């Protein structure tokens, strides 16, 4: 489902994916950094455009392209499978040039989910050997469940991110991401 306008941050912006993003969204999923942990996309450019057209109409499915402040696409992030006050997050693939971009992209997505969509809990499913993604998610104070084996025999971890917990994390991370003044205490 397409969102009108931009979710604007200081380091990145999130914009609903359009057909113009088809090539980028295909290419990033083939990047060696992500291909091991995200389902592979094996389609043509036209098929990817068709998928995006469907996605933009699909209820409860929000797929954003992450843009840096120089107007360059740097990744994707998604909230989907909205069911009541629950949803899933995923399609997270960001190649940021500074350490705040991925963090802010996730913050903007959660703010959208808990604020605009009024959700209470967002689940994430991450392969147990994807240590980088697990470390990233731990910053958001989600509840991590023990690994379970999926239908392909891979260990996968479920993480529940609750709105109430995120509000605390949002304040903490924002205090670092949006500092204004230098202060020397000694």
């Amino acid at each position: 489902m397409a969102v009108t306008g931009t979710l604007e941050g200081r380091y990145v912006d999130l914009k609903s994916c359009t057909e113009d993003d088809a090539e980028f969204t295909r290419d990033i999923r083939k990047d060696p950094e992500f291909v091991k942990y995200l389902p592979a996309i094996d389609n043509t450019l036209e098929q990817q455009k068709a998928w995006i057209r469907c996605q933009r109409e699909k209820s409860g499915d929000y797929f954003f392209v992450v843009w840096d402040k120089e107007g360059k696409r740097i990744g994707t992030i998604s909230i989907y499978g909205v069911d009541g006050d629950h949803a899933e997050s995923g399609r997270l693939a960001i190649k940021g040039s500074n350490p705040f971009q991925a963090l802010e992209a996730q913050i903007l997505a959660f703010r959208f989910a808990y604020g605009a969509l009024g959700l209470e809990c967002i689940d994430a499913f991450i392969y147990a050997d994807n240590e980088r993604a697990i470390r990233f998610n731990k910053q958001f104070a989600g509840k991590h469940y023990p690994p379970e084996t999926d239908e392909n025999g891979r260990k996968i971890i479920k993480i529940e991110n609750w709105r109430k917990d995120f509000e605390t994390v949002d304040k903490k991370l924002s205090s670092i991401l949006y500092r204004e003044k230098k202060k020397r205490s000694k």
Partner: protein
Amino acid sequence: MDNLKKYNNAFIETFEITEDQLAGLKYQDIAAWDSVGHMGLIAALEDAFDIMMDTDDIIDLSSYEKGKEILAKDEYGVEF
């Protein structure tokens, strides 16, 4: 403990590396220095030197050597 030792320890303890890995070390050179590790490094440096870093400096701290330059600025006053 002198400032260089404190500075080195922040990297060594945050990223669980050894001192001989410090020279030339850059952001994303090692798995531990990702966006999460970076936040941990900043917390360790702020704690070690009792400072609060500006966001631009946090972003600019892209290597072991660059970090020393930043902390040596007047705002932070760390002498190496």
